[in-house]
């Protein structure tokens, strides 16, 4: 059996899952089992939402990517995979990017659409934003400046005693070619095409991966606007709307009946002891270096010492 840790979950599999972080744990009742098998044609219980590739209710989810694989996720503790392709990398790719998030939803935990780096004081600064907002690129430019990666694309945020803590997803950063040309931290061996014919590349950071929860000192909401990089502090009340927008796969919230969970999670984060910022940059990739500089000067030097 192979054992891994991702998004705060203990994952056990009968086959190797190279994109996840290997992590040993004793037998217990809180393990997510990943197996190969035949995915049923439909859900056992009432279907709440049907989409082209997804059929789901609160406790069951069938994800069917044509010519790639079918996935049946149940009760937040079991993932059944039926490959439809010989390309195992592609089959596992959807496990990382969508299926694990589904398991979290079933466990009543909402993942957020964020990347992040570790600051010198061992806290995490997260970057939130829509697809292509530049979360990964911002993280990589800060890694060029000496910061360690924490997570890419998703993280779990949980509040305890008024402090917000983040748990990382898995040790792969997905980035566009232009960003890779500017990165100075990873060797060619650590970079692979993420999916055959896809646009993005994957940077493996297994050696730097931190599976432990770390406190979050700030969340920076990224957007493209204006002619220059601008950083501004943001009130927690204003951050609520943006936090809601940055729930990962937020389109599932209604179909999986997670509206109350969403409200509770976002309220707790907004009220916790962390700071919110907006960072605007001109719409051009060359602005990421100056964005990273501005984040370091105006945010990290303030909260990350």
């Amino acid at each position, binding site marked *: 059996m192979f054992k891994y840790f991702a998004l705060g979950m203990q994952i056990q599999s009968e086959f190797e899952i190279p994109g996840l972080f290997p992590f040993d744990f004793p037998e217990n009742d809180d393990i997510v089992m990943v197996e190969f098998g035949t995915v049923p044609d439909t859900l056992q219980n009432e279907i709440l939402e049907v989409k082209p590739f997804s059929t789901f209710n609160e406790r069951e989810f069938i994800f069917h990517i044509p010519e790639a694989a079918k996935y049946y996720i149940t009760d937040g503790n079991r993932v059944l995979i039926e490959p439809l392709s010989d390309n195992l990398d592609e089959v596992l790719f959807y496990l990382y*990017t969508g299926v694990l998030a589904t398991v979290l939803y079933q466990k009543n935990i909402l993942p957020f659409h964020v990347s992040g780096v570790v600051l010198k004081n061992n806290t995490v600064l997260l970057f939130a934003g829509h697809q*292509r907002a530049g979360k990964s690129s911002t993280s990589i430019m800060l890694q060029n400046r000496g910061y360690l990666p924490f997570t890419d694309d998703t993280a779990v945020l949980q509040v305890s005693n008024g402090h917000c803590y983040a748990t990382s997803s898995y040790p792969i950063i997905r980035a*566009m070619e232009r960003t890779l040309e500017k990165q100075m931290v990873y060797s060619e061996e650590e970079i692979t095409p993420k*999916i055959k014919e*896809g646009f993005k590349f994957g940077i493996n950071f297994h050696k730097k991966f931190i599976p432990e929860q770390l406190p979050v000192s700030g969340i920076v909401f990224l957007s493209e606007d204006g002619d220059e990089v601008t950083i501004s502090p943001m009130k927690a009340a204003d951050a609520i709307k943006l936090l809601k927008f940055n729930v990962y796969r937020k389109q599932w919230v209604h179909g999986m009946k997670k509206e109350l969970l969403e409200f509770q999670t976002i309220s707790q984060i907004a009220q916790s002891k962390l700071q919110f910022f907006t960072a605007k940059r001109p719409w051009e990739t060359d602005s990421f270096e100056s964005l990273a500089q501005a984040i370091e000067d105006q945010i990290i030097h303030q909260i990350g010492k």
Partner: protein
Amino acid sequence: MENKKNIVWLASYPKSGNTWFRSFISALRNKGEVDINAISTEGIFSQKRGLEEYLDLDADEIPVSKMDHFKRISFNHQSNTAVEKCFVKIHDLYSISKIDHQPIVPEESTFAAIYFVRNPLDVSISMANHDGKTLDESISKVICNEQVHLVRFGKHAHDQFQQYLGSWNMHVESWKKVTAFPVFFVRYEDLKNNPQDTFTRVLKQIEYEATEEEIRSAIEATEFEKLKSQEAEFGFREKPKACKSFFNKGEVGQWKVQLNQEQTSLIKQFNEPMMREFGYWED
């Protein structure tokens, strides 16, 4: 399952009245009110975000070999779940996918297309403003360029998929050849010069019910100067960075004072058949 035919494609070469018509539909649906930053039509064919929400995938991670197939699946779903007609903007030249050899749009969920056609001599001027290009660049690199694409495949991510545009003539001709669903052609110049009759005719063609008064009110709400003043006051989120003002002049016949003989001749040389077809040759 049989697909519902709810999609009405709002097809055009860029700068030919597409945004104006989307604003008009928005005003029709909102009792004569329109906010250019909240146009209530149903998206853009090339936009990645809709596909990502419908298919639960990241568009930049879909293998190229599946891209066009997945786009059709996404729009079929949009059509099947819609409660009324979906108006979807499209700037792509109508073609057969080079990837999977099917039509680029899902014909099985298409009700019709409205094609907005505008004199390419005027389009070249609007496009130069829109793209921050010179007139000569707009003419040689776009209007007369058979290979031109909007959003080229690049090393960084775009919010839109690449769109094959081709020359103005190729673009109009491609939509003229469609036989799988009705394509209703409407000239920008007719919308400008005779809006009540022209908008009424188009709505009738696509079986969209609206009273004469509702149409009049929507036309008034979307007068060019009103849209332009909204942009001046609040900005326009669809405006490209290179463009100072999306709603520039919108006039008919600007080319007579802005294009020189050489520029006019070049456009005519490359675009003769469809210019003749739509009455722009003798202007």
